[in-house]
């Protein structure tokens, strides 16, 4: 049985995707960072984020999932709940 992945490990993946895909610094990427207000994520960015995270985690994001994500914590929780 595969070991449960920790939330901090998932956060690391998410941070890595944001750093690589959008050139954010690590300090900007905290659990409570707001995707739109703080990171100015638009619908195209959200798709790019989802594609990269799907490649990294095999968790798929529906359009509805993307609409409901508000913070990095939401992204981490969604992945955590589906792994």
């Amino acid at each position, binding site marked *: 049985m595969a070991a449960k992945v920790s939330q901090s490990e998932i956060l690391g993946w998410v941070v890595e995707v944001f750093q690589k895909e959008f050139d954010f610094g690590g300090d900007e990427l905290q659990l409570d960072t707001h995707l739109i207000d703080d990171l100015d994520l638009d619908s*195209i960015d959200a798709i790019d984020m989802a594609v990269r995270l799907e490649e990294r985690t095999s968790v798929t994001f529906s359009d509805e999932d993307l609409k409901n994500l508000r913070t990095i914590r939401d992204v981490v929780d969604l992945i955590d709940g589906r792994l």
Partner: protein
Amino acid sequence: MIARASRVASTGISFAVFGIAGLILSLLVLPFVRSWPGTAREREFRCQHVVRHTFRHFIRMMVALRVLDVEVRAEEQLRQPGQLVVANHPTLLDVVFLVSLMPQADCVVKREAFSNPFMRGIVRSTGYLPNDLGGALISAGAQRLRAGRSLLIFPEGTRSSLSALGPFRRGAAHMALESGRPLRPVVIRCEPPSLMRGQKWYDVPERRMHFSIECCEEIDPGDVVGATENRGAAARKLSAALRDFYEKKLQTPGH
């Protein structure tokens, strides 16, 4: 005082004419023009031609009524086909000016225009694109650019407020990157500031509006963005560079 009252009346007449013309175009003229035989592209171009000439006459009327005057610099640059034209959006009339200057333009417009009775016939028959399609808008825009069609986008997505240039959405930057086409910036200035977001049409200024429309040199995405950058980072960088360009331009007055 009398001159100002006269301009309030002239402005009212102008917008009434615009609304009536929009209805006539939407309900009668464009459905008829669109019904003539031809490919979808030919039909859209015919309708765009009608809209362009209607807008030209509308501007001539506003100039004749002394509501505004307009000066266009490097207008010939807007006549080239297959261009990605971007502009700041200070007033209600920006799209009217630019459409009247471009021989062919696919505009990216707000979704509300597709349900506005004065506008819906125009935006549907001309093949204009709604701005809420996300990734599909980028693909459609890039495809049209590659097919030699010109696109007109206001990166602010809505009119500027009185205080400042608004934040830029990144759709135009994405389209430039996906299509490999440069951005053609157009700088629109209106003195005194009028018809901006938050201003009513009847808040006419003390003197006649003077519009200055300046067509600038193209911005090549390759000069701004590195070859290996990811799409998201590249679009952010290009969009920031474009906004920076406008910030600097708007600090200098038009002539």
